[in-house]
């Protein structure tokens, strides 16, 4: 405690200014009795006053924990890596989901329209109940010809109705294949067994080994065109569908805006607790 701040502030007490001594408390320091009074007022807490300290501390900590549970306050320095991790997890999850679809398509188990779509995009088996009137596309239901961009629905070759799923599928395949080729089957199998199974299924649908399938996916050489076009989309497979960064709340340092109008002109950043008697009124 600095009990004497008020009464001892200022080594050279000034005589009264034009406002009398209204603006200054310095006259207090000459008055020993007033100084004692001030010190008594500022004395440290008595046991009686602090009898609820334990309870207050516990309640405070509990509130802070509850607050942190609702929305963790993450320091800026650690927030970014967490965001990256979440993004990577999101990307992998998306890849797994997409390849699950690929696997389903490869086994011909998708609903008919989807299976037809998968057939045209990744060369999955045609739907069992084939009807040639699925799309009024520029390409009738003939067999898929390699090297030809597939436009499934609208007649315009520039629109990309298939682009979103196909590129996403491609991105998923390319991403997982890239990981597979880089890490090798054991790692991929261990860490992403579901994804690996999907890769196996997709490769099997092409009557290829996973390695050769992945090679063809990641290094398209006029193989399945749609995959080739997908790989151009999928050149950045790590890009997640959505940054999963919104767990941390921003604005940890808003200062004092707590509805109590703390906007006095004193945000001077001075660390000194000393109240300073002002000289002018």
């Amino acid at each position: 405690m600095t009990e004497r701040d008020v009464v001892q502030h200022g080594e050279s007490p000034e005589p009264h200014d034009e406002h009398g001594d209204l603006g200054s408390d310095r006259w207090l320091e000459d008055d020993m009795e007033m100084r004692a009074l001030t010190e008594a007022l500022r004395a440290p807490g008595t046991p009686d006053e602090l009898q609820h300290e334990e309870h207050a501390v516990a309640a405070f900590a509990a509130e802070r924990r509850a607050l942190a549970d609702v929305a963790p306050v993450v320091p800026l320095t650690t927030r970014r890596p967490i965001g990256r991790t979440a993004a990577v997890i999101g990307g992998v999850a998306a890849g797994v989901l997409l390849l699950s679809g690929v696997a389903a398509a490869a086994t011909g188990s998708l609903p008919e329209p989807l299976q037809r779509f998968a057939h045209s995009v990744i060369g999955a088996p045609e739907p069992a109940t084939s009807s040639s009137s699925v799309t009024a596309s520029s390409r009738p239901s003939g067999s898929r010809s390699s090297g030809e961009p597939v436009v499934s629905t609208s007649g315009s070759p520039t629109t990309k109705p298939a682009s979103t799923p196909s590129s996403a599928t491609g991105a998923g395949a390319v991403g997982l294949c890239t990981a597979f080729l880089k890490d090798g089957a054991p790692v991929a199998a261990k860490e992403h067994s579901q994804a690996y199974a999907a890769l196996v299924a997709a490769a099997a649908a092409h009557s290829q080994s996973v390695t050769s399938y992945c090679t063809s996916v990641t290094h398209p050489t006029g193989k399945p065109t749609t995959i080739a076009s997908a790989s151009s989309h999928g050149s950045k497979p790590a890009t997640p569908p959505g940054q999963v960064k919104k767990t941390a709340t921003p604005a940890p340092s808003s200062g004092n805006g707590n509805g109590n109008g703390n906007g006095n002109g004193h945000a001077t950043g001075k660390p000194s607790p000393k109240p300073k008697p002002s000289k002018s009124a």
Partner: protein
Amino acid sequence: MLGEEFPEVLRAALDGDENAFARLYRDAHPPLLRYLTTLSPQYAEDAASETWLELARSRDTFAGPELGFRAWLFSVARHKVVDRVRYEARRPSTPSDDLEPLGSTSPDVADRVVEDDATARALALVRTLPPDQAEAVLLRVMAGLDYPEVAQVMDRSTGAVRVLVHRGLRRLQDRLPSVAADGVTR
């Protein structure tokens, strides 16, 4: 006051460090309680507890100086006790002692809160002042706030609180000898 350590201690407290919060509490709770008891002995403890909880729930970090934090603390506490007094006053069939206006604390009630003799007597003396003078003196001299902060807490102009503090201190000075004879000053 914690001085230069304050920002660190407050930050740690808000991060859930119980020891840090205990330091904060031990430093600021006694003057807060003395102030609130002067305003309303009945609701002082409640208002003080609620004020600390308010801090616990706050997302602000009070990056500013310690005085700004104190001003916030006393301001919130004052609102709580004033609201409570008003609420109780509006309630039908309120016992008459609940209608006691702000600042009408009798010294003996205050003495129950503070055991320390010198502190109790000093507070008792301050509480003989008109309520607004007593409040201004406590915020300025005991809590250590600057005049603009006192003005903010009391929702008055800076000039007005200067006058209140000045008059209050002068009046205390006049009354001190009798207290001094009682042993407040050595």
